[in-house]
């Protein structure tokens, strides 16, 4: 166990409800060990707040091992914090300086309304998937798994895209609050696989339309999304989604 103890000056976004105004509130958190994760540091802050009789800071998290996509904070101005290929829950405090001031804000986008403090509503992403992010395949009617051979490279590319955890960091980091990377990851995954081809045109058109209806911004190729993506989903998939889209548009 480490004996080293750190302290931080936190500036945390507090907001009581979707309609309430919010603001950054300063907290000092002490007795933090470097191997703690960022969320464990916030847990500790909450324990300290509770003992003082104050309301803990609300934030989302679940698996705490970087796969469920539920956590997500903008830390010192970067979605999921300063370390690349990392979720907020797997970011360790040893990556910060003792005594550092750390700003903690929710993922911000018009399509992600704040519910409370650092908790935002990301159901817009679910609705994008509902618009077509699936293969229409009822249980029970599938052919044998090996009936259609799939080139290894295609399977690998599909897997690259499929590793998206739906955290919404791409939206949070995008200067335009665009959901292109999220949407394209699903479009591209299914475009690489023969199982996805029959519905490819309808899928890309519907998902893009839903994405627009949700009020996300447009993609201007800043590539910030890829830089903050905890699973390093490439903007190559955005290019691929567009290609799929031209096929739907021109074909």
């Amino acid at each position, binding site marked *: 166990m480490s004996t080293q103890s750190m302290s931080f000056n936190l500036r945390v976004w507090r907001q009581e409800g979707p309609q309430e105004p919010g603001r950054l509130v300063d907290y000092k958190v002490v007795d933090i060990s470097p191997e703690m994760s960022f969320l464990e540091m916030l847990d500790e802050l909450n324990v300290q707040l*509770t003992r003082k009789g104050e309301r803990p800071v609300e934030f989302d998290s679940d698996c705490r*091992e*970087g796969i469920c996509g539920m956590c997500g904070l903008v830390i010192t101005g970067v979605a999921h914090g300063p370390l690349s290929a990392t979720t907020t829950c797997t970011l360790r405090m040893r990556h910060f300086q003792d005594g550092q001031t750390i700003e903690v804000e929710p993922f911000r986008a018009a399509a992600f309304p704040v*519910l409370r403090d650092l908790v935002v509503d990301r159901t817009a992403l679910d609705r994008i998937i509902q618009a077509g*992010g699936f293969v229409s395949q009822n249980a*029970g009617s599938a052919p044998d798994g090996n009936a259609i051979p*799939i080139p*290894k490279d295609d399977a690998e590319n599909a897997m690259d895209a499929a*590793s998206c955890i739906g955290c919404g960091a791409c939206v949070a980091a995008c200067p335009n609050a665009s959901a292109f990377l999220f949407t394209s990851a699903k479009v591209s995954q299914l475009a690489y696989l023969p199982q996805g081809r029959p519905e490819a045109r309808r899928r890309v058109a519907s998902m893009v339309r839903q994405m627009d209806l949700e009020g996300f911004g447009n993609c201007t190729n800043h590539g910030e999304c890829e830089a903050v993506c905890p699973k390093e989903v490439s903007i190559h998939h955005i290019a691929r989604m567009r290609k799929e889209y031209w096929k739907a548009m021109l074909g």
Partner: protein
Amino acid sequence: MNQTFLNAPPEESARILDARIPPGPLERKWTDHRGHVSLVSPANKRKHTILVVGTGLAGGAAAAALGELGYRVLNFCIQDSPRRAHSVAAQGGINASKNYQNDGDSDFRLFYDTVKGGDFRAREANVYRLAELSGAIIDQCVAQGVPFAREYGGTLANRSFGGAQVSRTFYARGQTGQQLLLGAYGSLMRQVAAGTVTMLARREMLDLVLVDGRARGIVCRNLVTGELETYAGDAVLLATGGYSTVFYLSTNAVNCNNSAAWRCHKRGAFFANPCFTQIHPTCIPQEAETQSKLTLMSESLRNDGRVWVPAKAGDHRSAAEIPESERDYYLERIYPAFGNLVPRDIASRAAKRMCDEGKGVGKTGRAVFLDFQAALERLGRPVIAERYGNLFHMYEEITAEDPYRVPMRIYPAPHYTMGGLWVDYNLMTTIPGLFALGEANFSDHGANRLGASALMQGLADGYFVIPYTLGAYLAEWRPQPISTEHEAFAQAAAEVRQGIQSLLEVAGKEPVRDLWRRLGHICWERVGMSREASGLNQALEEIRDLRKSFWQEVCIPGGERELNRSLEMAIRVADYLEFAELLAMDALHREESCGGHFREEFRTPEGEALRDDERFTYVAAWEYTGDLQRPRLHKENLKFEHVQPGQRSYK
């Protein structure tokens, strides 16, 4: 508080539980049963409302499959999106008896391995059905666009996993659970778009509503507004996962809890084999007291990693300084046939034994080495990186050590619970209309689950079992429509509200997290990897004491009708304080060692688990008899007709 009964033997019911296993030969049971059950006509399906709680592999698959059939489904999840259910975290893979590798696999062999792996405490008929359905799961997932690993020829790749002697595990890098869940999630989203499934996220089920003895609805807390909501339907499907977080530190997600199952138990559903908990051997050791969870690394690591400790106790040199001759590759030494690939329970206990003997490594001494040096020399870094790159990365992120250069340190952690609500062959609990699926039920893994079997069971239950058995239940019963206007709903909601109020009225000082940590500590120390009567008795008393403290000391800032994580957590911990007692009691009553349940008093001279088939070849299903009352034990006798119980030997 009445503590007198704690040490007494359990009161036993004379009635033997009937699992309603269909007649006929093992390999025909499911096909025949499926072919003979009553059906709901297509036109009538939309008239039935089904409440599915949970959106993991079992719940998500069930909701999607029932939606596809035309039922009206209300699907609840605790997270903000169904895609986050903890099935997402499963890494290694999913088993199926496809025999694509031509290495001798078959339904029977998968069945046999699972029954043996479960230490002969699983129900044969269920396990055979699971093996039988395993192939269809792979087909379904491939068709959904799950990007399984493939060979250059384009066919599906397999690996050997968790001690299996055939390669039957299908995988998608180290993210198999995620990919299978996203497949089910896609199907679910399709049904949401089609209007058959209504998704209700950020809801936590807090009670079951019974009308005329049948499950007809649930009470939920809306986690955003804090309002209590009631929903009515013709059946309730519980797919709420396991209870590993009773140990506080586990590999489960922080929102995983047992409250829904526990409250169903309090309404009359029997809870089976709670003491069968699985401790996974390859987790990253605990580093700090304030840690919120433990991180699992796929046990596929054991395919190429070698487990060792210093041969001498108290050797605190770094791994590099310990010469080959002073290392003890204890799994290879004790179990030469399976070596590093012995089943989870055996690997976990061996690690604990080594640490207990003072051979543990790392700052805490509660860890063993998992060394890739030999594999790196044999296969080269690129191959190892391709196989385990993401796991190595994860390990380094957490520990700041590079496993390419320094051996990993691993230690067992609570991971999965084989126990759960008792269900019959049709997955129905002892409450008519209440079904339990996936990890929430007890049925298929006996006393120990084999690797890559949890995903299989969740999807089998959801896609391929429940659509038939639920239909049969509805067709035979023909329910009358019901609405939440029925007085039972208001009454259940009032009871839930009362419970929440009493929690909020405790004006203590202790944060819930600290109390939960204390409960976890008791359970881990006394009802964890190894148990003994005196420790279990002590645990029972400590749990009672802690429960008393909890109700005096807990501090819940904020109110009921708002987003309030402290309150959510307090509700779950309050339930765990009740459940933990049952867990310890079940462990105390089962005077044998089997699978994940290891009693110090019952072991072979070599220290291996010693079953008592004579006395304990049964499922222990507990009936709730009231708060602080002794639960009543019901037995379902297990018959082994196709696999002869023997001592599991992996030597």
